[in-house]
Every structure is written in structure tokens, then in C-alpha cells.
């Protein structure tokens, strides 16, 4: 496992930050982000896939009322792929005419999906050699998050109560120079300088939130339940893997 990995540094692999707005579709956005990244890594094609298809054609019909990434992958398999975002754009509410997948050419598809071991080393190794992975975490600490690495404990962030799916795009180990804390009302506090291993995660709440739409979680203590559901699509046949590697 390399010491650092950041798929954002690879050209055209990670798409721009999406915003779920008032539709509880983080599960669909995370799955779409995962498929986009894997497709671009494997086929060097810049695809932007339809999140709306995952909402309208979801076998559980939950659409904007929440769901699970594994349902999104089953939807992709059942519909033989995903239409483009251009053809089947995101609306943020269920289409009154239901699933329109049959109308559109598919720009990406998957062979299978798989769940990794709940082991942060295994997850890091797979991330670096195959590409981004969806994870589901307890989002409680994200409401007030501005920047930096969140190092939670089971008390501050119950790892069993996972309720928000996001895309894992890298990991690092930072020398963190903690300046004075920003904010008018909050008292000025200085955090000590320390080096922390962290995960880099892509959220779906727009680029204004967090670190330009991303956030970082401590790596090594299952912060907020990150190891509970590490799930990723497979976009190519299980032939001998072409050597790919994540930018450091």
C-alpha cells in the first residue's frame, strides 16, 4: 500500500462535486461517482452518468427518500448500464413518468459489484490499485465541519449508526500546521501541530461545503464507521489486471 493516494490529481478521473439538494440521494450520487471514476480509469473515456436514472429506476422505489448503494448497482445491472447526465439529467425529485432508462443509449455499465473487507489497509490497497470506492459513514459530525481531519471516537461518532454514503478518493498523511481558528463568535483556539493519517472523501453537498466539497477523516480507527460498507463496482471482466496506480 503506497503511503499516499489522491485520485483527484489524476486528469479527468474524478468528476466535479455534485449537490443532492433536498433529495436524499447520497447513495445514488456515490454509486454514480464510483462508476464514472472506474470507467474513466479503465477505458480512458470521460463519462458523466445519470443519477436521475438511479432514482427513477431504483427497484425499491425510494428515489429521494434514501437508499443504499447496493440497490443502485442492482439498478445499473437491471437496466444494462447508465444513460448520460446530458440525456437523463438530475432533477432532484422522482420523474412522474417513472423510469426512462430504455429511451437512452448507455454510456457506462458494470459487470458486478463487490464489498471489501472491513479493514482499512485492505481498503487503501484496493483504492490505490483499482480506483475510488463508496463508503457509508455516520454523518453526525459533518453538520458543523469546516476543514481538517476529523478524528472521531465511538462516543462522538457511533460507527454502527451509518447513514450517509460518499466516495473515497484517496488517503494521505499530513503535517498539519494549525493556525488560529477562524470565526467571529468562536473563541480563538490553537490546535497543536501533529501528523495524522487521513482518508479523503468526496461528498454530495456542493462545493461550498467542507474543503471544496471534500472532507477528511482520520485513517486507522474506523472513524464514523467508514469500514462498515466499503462497496465498489467492477467495470471490466476479471481478466489479468492492467497495472494502474494512484497518483501520490
Amino acid at each position, binding site marked *: 500500500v503506497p503511503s499516499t493516494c489522491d485520485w483527484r490529481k489524476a486528469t479527468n478521473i474524478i468528476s466535479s462535486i455534485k449537490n443532492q439538494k433536498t433529495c436524499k440521494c447520497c447513495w445514488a450520487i456515490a454509486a454514480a461517482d464510483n462508476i464514472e471514476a472506474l470507467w474513466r480509469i479503465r477505458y480512458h473515456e470521460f463519462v458523466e452518468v445519470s443519477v436521475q436514472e438511479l432514482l427513477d429506476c431504483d427497484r425499491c422505489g425510494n428515489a429521494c427518500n434514501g437508499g443504499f448503494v447496493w440497490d443502485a448497482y442492482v439498478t445499473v445491472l437491471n437496466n444494462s448500464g447508465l444513460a448520460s447526465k446530458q440525456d437523463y439529467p438530475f432533477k432532484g425529485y422522482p420523474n412522474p413518468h417513472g423510469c426512462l432508462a430504455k429511451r437512452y443509449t448507455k454510456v457506462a455499465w458494470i459487470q458486478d459489484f463487490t464489498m471489501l473487507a472491513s479493514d482499512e489497509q485492505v481498503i487503501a490497497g484496493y483504492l490505490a490499485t483499482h480506483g475510488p470506492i463508496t463508503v457509508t459513514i455516520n454523518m453526525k459530525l459533518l453538520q*458543523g465541519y469546516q476543514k481538517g481531519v476529523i478524528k472521531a471516537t465511538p462516543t462522538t461518532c457511533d460507527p454502527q449508526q*451509518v447513514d450517509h454514503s460518499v466516495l473515497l478518493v484517496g488517503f494521505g498523511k499530513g503535517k498539519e500546521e494549525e493556525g488560529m481558528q477562524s470565526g*467571529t*463568535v468562536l473563541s480563538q483556539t490553537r490546535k497543536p501541530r501533529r501528523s495524522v493519517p487521513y482518508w479523503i472523501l468526496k461528498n454530495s453537498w456542493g462545493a461550498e461545503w467542507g474543503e471544496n466539497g471534500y472532507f477528511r477523516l482520520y485513517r486507522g480507527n474506523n472513524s464514523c464507521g467508514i469500514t462498515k460498507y466499503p462497496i465498489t463496482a467492477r467495470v471490466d471482466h476479471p481478466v489479468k489486471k492492467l497495472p494502474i496506480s494512484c497518483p501520490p
Partner: protein
Amino acid sequence: DSLLTKDTGPRPLELTEVFKLFQIKYNRSYANPAEYAHRLNIFAHNLAQAQRLQEEDLGTAEFGETPFSDLTEEEFGQLYGHQKAPERIPNMVKKVGSEKWGQP
């Protein structure tokens, strides 16, 4: 329990100023003075909570005002969290074979 503080004294000027800037930044308006007061209380509670998280956090995270600072934790969970993931992933593969002994 109610977020409305017992304290009826004038609020520190900067909090209402910060809240006004928050409203401008995130384009927030509230239906009536009671709702405004309710949201201001939630905002104050969330900033205090952010400070506590800041002190509790064992990493390098910074907490403070975000687009969600005028929502209670429950509202935030209802708006943005999908239902709690099940204790185990539903069984994808249908049970193969017959229940009856000896049947292929």
C-alpha cells in the same frame, strides 16, 4: 428540550451580526419573527456545539458555521441522511434449490 434560552437579555451583538451574515451568505429568510428567533437559537446552539466538537476532536478538524448551521441535528439527519443502513446487507442471491429433502 427547548433550545429557547431562559436568558431574555440582549444577545451579544456579534452573534446576531454573524447570523445576519449567515442569512446573506446562504440566502436564508424566515417566515416570521418567531421563526427567526427559533433559528437564531439553533444557530447559537450549533456554534457552541461546533466549539465543543473542536475541543473534543482528536484530529485537526475545524468546526464552525456551515450551510446547515440553522438546522437542528434531527432536521439535518432527516434532510441529508438516508435511513440507517441495515445491520447486514440484504441477501442478494435467491435461495437456490428446494426446501424439500432429496429434491434437485
